[in-house]
Structures are given as structure tokens and as C-alpha cells.
């Protein structure tokens, strides 16, 4: 409930392009970025006489995703035609699923690392498999009268995932999307690239306003054209505020006006009403006679389930249990994707120090990847090399500052710990050498010795800087320890 006394109620409809080689109903490539109309055939152009045949892999990826979303898989599913006219819809209908979708009644659990909202289970109404449309582009060069149509995308498999209106804030909506995207990347079923359109989000939002007469619902608005998760968050925040103002001014409630569609204008940071087509909702769904139903046995479901691999939620729990990480550290690692988790597990095991491994990976490894603009697979420091480095830190052989220099060198040159230390001249210093060094220092700084004797222990700090100037390999902790011993002996 906001300070105004209303709750924002949000449901999300997410369309995800599934990562198949060929399209859902024909064998044209799904590769993104090809020149216009070079990846089409009679089937995806909707040419007279052509017929669809379903891509087995698309169905498998859809099934896998639905299971990961904890959906039920009905034994029988079928495909329906959704009829409407649009130039990028060459058949005059989309092949989608109406009353018997391939999955239903699932959920996705979300939690907020910043703790803004409690852990939530967002229910999923259904996830169904359908074909994508092509692209219409407004042609500004050739004059305002024409649009150009590219059908390369037409027929790409889409999974539409529809949530219940269970989300209660823009932040929750964003977290739901983030967690969904993470799940999809763990499943390796989609590229989830919003810029390339492989993940698209529409939102349904309204408010439940508390009034002295009880709770009142405002009309539901559908928001489109949101091109990033940030845009979704902002559009929803804007829309909640807008709806509240409209309600305050007009008192309009759910059912008073037809459902409105608004588009997010990212430049202006506002939603704008889109022209509504009163007839457009009459899609005249009916079973596609060109496709046959799909029946899935419990055994097949079981098999897909078994092959699914570890998903983010389970992985977070396991990292906490097996490596004694706290929730936050486990979350950061898991959110970076499976590859980084694998890296972490190797470093943690080999170094025997999961906590330190977690810290180094979250800070140094990720920073290094970012700075270089590379992915983990391209990162030159192997898990065993990093583990070796961390062991040196653990034994005190290297202090943290020197270890970071070594790490930097290893990242830059792909060198081993020994090579990096050699190159940087970082060698272990004998105790005799350190004792001699400290003696000289104390002799040169009688005032400091006096201060320490007078109980100002922190005065020793100044000596450490001096020691490192004379010998960069001097370990600060050991310098401090030896100086202390020598001063004590003096008295």
C-alpha cells in the first residue's frame, strides 16, 4: 500500500523466443539479423497451399520451461488459430493456444536482495507455444504513406508466459522479470535479449484503492512498448501514479470503461493511449485443422524434468548449505549465471576457503570481466590458478595488496601465480632480512619508538610504510610483528 492508500496490482505477459535452429512450423533459420526477407519460405510467408509441421525441439524447450516454472502439463494439448489482420501476419492468423494450453498453474518465487518486499510466490496462469509475427517498419524516407514488411521473424517459436496479477509493485515486477530471465538462461532455452526482441513484456496494471466504502479497483490498463526491465519498472510506476490521479479526478472504476492499451514512451517517460480497436478482441479462435494435437505422458514429463539441471532457486540453497555462504553472496553468484557458479565451486573447493573465493569472485573477477568486456569463458585466470593465489593469501605468504597485484598480472597476461610473482619481483623475504630491516628502521626513528613505548601503539603504522619503501616484498603484518618484538626487547 502506498502512502496514498492504494495497492498496485500487476500481471505480466512475457513472450520469449525459444532458441531453436529452425522456425516453429517450417525449416527456415531463426538467426537474428539477416537481411530482410531472406529467411522465408512458402510456409512462413503463408503462401496458398503451404502447411505447418511443428518443430519437435520447440515443443521440448517449451515443455522444459513450463516444468521449470512449476506448471502442470496436461496430457492433451492442441493449437488454435487466432484470427486478425496485420501486414506482418501473413496467414491472417497466428497459430497459438486457446483453451487447452500445453501448461498451466505454475509459479515463480522471487525475493528482493534489498529487502524492499518480502519473498513472494508469483502464480503463473499458463505458458503456451505460438508463432511470432514478422516486422512492420514505418518508412520515413520514402514518404509517410508506406510501411515495409520483413517476414524473417515470422514463424519463430514463442513461449507466452502469463502471470496472475500477483505482483504488487514495480520493483516486484522487475524482480519477477529478472528471476524469469535468469531461469531461462539456466535452462538455455532463449537468448532473452530485449533489444533483439527475443524477450518482450506487456503488463496489465490497475489499482486497488482503499476508500471509506471499502476497496475500489480502477480500470485495467495494458502497457506495451517497454524495451528494458528498467522501462517496465518506470512505466508501471508512472502508470500507477497516473491511474491514481485519474481515479481521484473521475472516480472511474473497473468495468466503467473498456480495457485500455497504452504505450510506454521511453523518451518522454510517459504512457500514452494507443488507438483502441473495439473489434480487435474478436479473434475467432478455433482449432487449427492443419495441426494435430500433442499428447504428453507422465513418463515423458518425468524424463524432461530429470534432464532439466539445477535451477537458480535450488542452486542458491545448495551454495548456502555446501559452502556456508550467506544468502546475499549465494544470490550474487547465482544471478551471474551457471558458468560463474561452476567457477566459484572449483575455486572454493581447490582453495578450501569458500568465503574468500566468493569475495574474490564477486569483486575482483567480476570487475576484471567488466573492465575487459569479456565473458567468463574468455577469462585467462583458471579456477585452479585463482585457488592457488587464495591459498597464498590464506597462509599469509602474500598480503592482500600484493595478491591483488598478482591477480592483476595473471588477468592481464594469463600467467600462473609463480610467473606473476616472478615478474613483479614478489618473493618471500627471510626473517633475518626483515629483522635487519626493522632494526634499521627503529634506529632511524627514535621518536616513533618512544611513542610506542608511551603506549601509542598505532605509531608503528608509520614504520610499515617506510619498510615497504625499502623492500616492497616486506609483509606488513610481519613487519608490524617484528617491530613490536624489537621495541619490547628494548625496554
Amino acid at each position, binding site marked *: 500500500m502506498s502512502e496514498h492508500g492504494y495497492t498496485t496490482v500487476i500481471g505480466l505477459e512475457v513472450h520469449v523466443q525459444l532458441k531453436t535452429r529452425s522456425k516453429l512450423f517450417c525449416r527456415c533459420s531463426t538467426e537474428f539479423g539477416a537481411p*530482410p526477407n531472406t529467411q522465408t519460405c*512458402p510456409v512462413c510467408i503463408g503462401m496458398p497451399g503451404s502447411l505447418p509441421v511443428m518443430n*519437435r525441439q520447440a515443443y521440448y524447450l517449451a515443455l522444459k520451461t513450463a516444468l521449470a516454472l512449476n506448471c502442470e502439463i496436461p496430457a492433451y494439448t492442441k493449437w488454435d488459430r487466432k484470427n486478425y489482420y496485420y501486414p506482418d501476419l501473413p496467414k491472417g492468423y497466428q497459430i497459438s493456444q486457446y483453451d487447452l494450453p500445453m501448461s498451466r498453474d505454475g509459479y515463480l518465487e522471487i525475493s528482493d536482495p534489498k529487502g524492499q518486499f518480502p519473498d513472494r510466490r508469483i502464480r503463473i496462469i499458463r505458458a503456451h507455444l505460438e508463432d511470432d509475427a514478422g516486422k512492420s517498419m514505418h518508412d520515413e524516407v520514402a514518404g509517410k*504513406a508506406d510501411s515495409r*514488411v520483413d517476414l524473417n521473424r515470422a514463424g519463430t517459436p514463442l513461449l507466452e508466459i502469463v502471470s496472475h496479477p500477483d505482483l504488487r509493485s514495480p520493483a516486484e515486477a522487475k524482480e519477477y522479470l529478472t528471476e524469469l530471465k535468469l531461469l531461462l538462461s539456466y535452462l538455455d532455452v532463449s537468448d532473452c535479449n530485449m533489444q533483439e526482441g527475443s524477450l518482450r513484456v506487456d503488463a496489465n496494471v490497475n489499482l486497488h484503492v482503499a476508500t471509506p466504502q471499502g476497496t475500489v479497483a480502477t480500470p485495467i490498463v495494458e502497457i506495451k512498448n517497454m524495451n528494458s526491465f528498467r522501462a517496465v519498472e518506470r512505466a508501471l510506476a508512472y502508470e500507477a501514479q497516473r491511474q491514481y490521479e485519474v481515479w481521484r479526478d473521475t472516480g472511474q472504476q473497473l468495468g466503467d470503461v473498456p480495457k485500455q492499451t497504452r504505450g510506454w514512451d521511453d523518451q518522454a517517460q510517459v504512457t500514452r493511449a494507443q488507438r483502441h480497436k473495439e473489434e480487435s478482441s474478436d479473434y*475467432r479462435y478455433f482449432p487449427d485443422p492443419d495441426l494435430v494435437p500433442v499428447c504428453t505422458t507422465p513418463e515423458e514429463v518425468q524424463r524432461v524434468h530429470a534432464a532439466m539441471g539445477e535451477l537458480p532457486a535450488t542452486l542458491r540453497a545448495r551454495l548456502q548449505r555446501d559452502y556456508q555462504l550467506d544468502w546475499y553472496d549465494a544470490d550474487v553468484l547465482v544471478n551471474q549465471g551457471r558458468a560463474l557458479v561452476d567457477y566459484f565451486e572449483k575455486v572454493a573447493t581447490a582453495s578450501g576457503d569458500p568465503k574468500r573465493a566468493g569475495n574474490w569472485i564477486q569483486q575482483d573477477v567480476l570487475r576484471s570481466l567488466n573492465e575487459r568486456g569479456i565473458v567468463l569463458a574468455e577469462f585467462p585466470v583458471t579456477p585452479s590458478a585463482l585457488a592457488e593465489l587464495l591459498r597464498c593469501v590464506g597462509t599469509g605468504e602474500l598480503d592482500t595488496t600484493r595478491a591483488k597485484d598478482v591477480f592483476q598480472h595473471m588477468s592481464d597476461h594469463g600467467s600462473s601465480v609463480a610467473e606473476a610473482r616472478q615478474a613483479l619481483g614478489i618473493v618471500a623475504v627471510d626473517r633475518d632480512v626483515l629483522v635487519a630491516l626493522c632494526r634499521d628502521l627503529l634506529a632511524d626513528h627514535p621518536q616513533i619508538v618512544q611513542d610506542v613505548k608511551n603506549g601509542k601503539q598505532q605509531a608503528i603504522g608509520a614504520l610499515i610504510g617506510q619498510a615497504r619503501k625499502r623492500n616492497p616484498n616486506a609483509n606488513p603484518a610481519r613487519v608490524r610483528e617484528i617491530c613490536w618484538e624489537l621495541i619490547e626487547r628494548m625496554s
Partner: protein
Amino acid sequence: MSLTQNDVEKVSLLARLQLSPGEMAALTLQLGQIVEYVEQFNELETDGVTPMAHALDLSNVFADDVVLPSLDREQALANAPKRDEECYRVPAVLGDE
């Protein structure tokens, strides 16, 4: 149930047909007659009958996910009423607001 001219008008928009007044009048009458004839099947009790959308009891027909050659662009666009070198062309989809 008979159809009104208004029904026919609405359906013609859904179907993206532009009917002349003459066609509209004739269709209102003819569709009305046909619908009336069709409705004779309402005398049948069909509760519990499984609808039959397909003539066959086939299921699970799939193709393997392999890429085969597409049409080249020239072939794809060859039948287009209006096109340029790359794309189909249509009156602006955004309308003209």
C-alpha cells in the same frame, strides 16, 4: 435467428470485406436463410458428445529442428503486389493520425 443488416455490416468488417448496398441486402437475406437452415441441428441433444475437429485421430506429429534452405528474396517477393528491393510495401500500418 435472423440476421440484421447491422450484424452483416459488423461481420464484413471483421472479415475485411467491403460490401456494396446491394450485396449487403442480398447477404442479409441469404445468410439469414442459411443460418435458419443450419439451426435445425439444434433439435439434436449433443451434451457430452466429444467435438470432432479432425477427421483423423492423429497426434504428436513433429519435424526435426534442422535448417533447410529458404527461398531467395527474389522468389519470396516475386508475387507481391507492391514491393521494393527488400520488403513488401503496404499503406502505413500506424494509420494516419
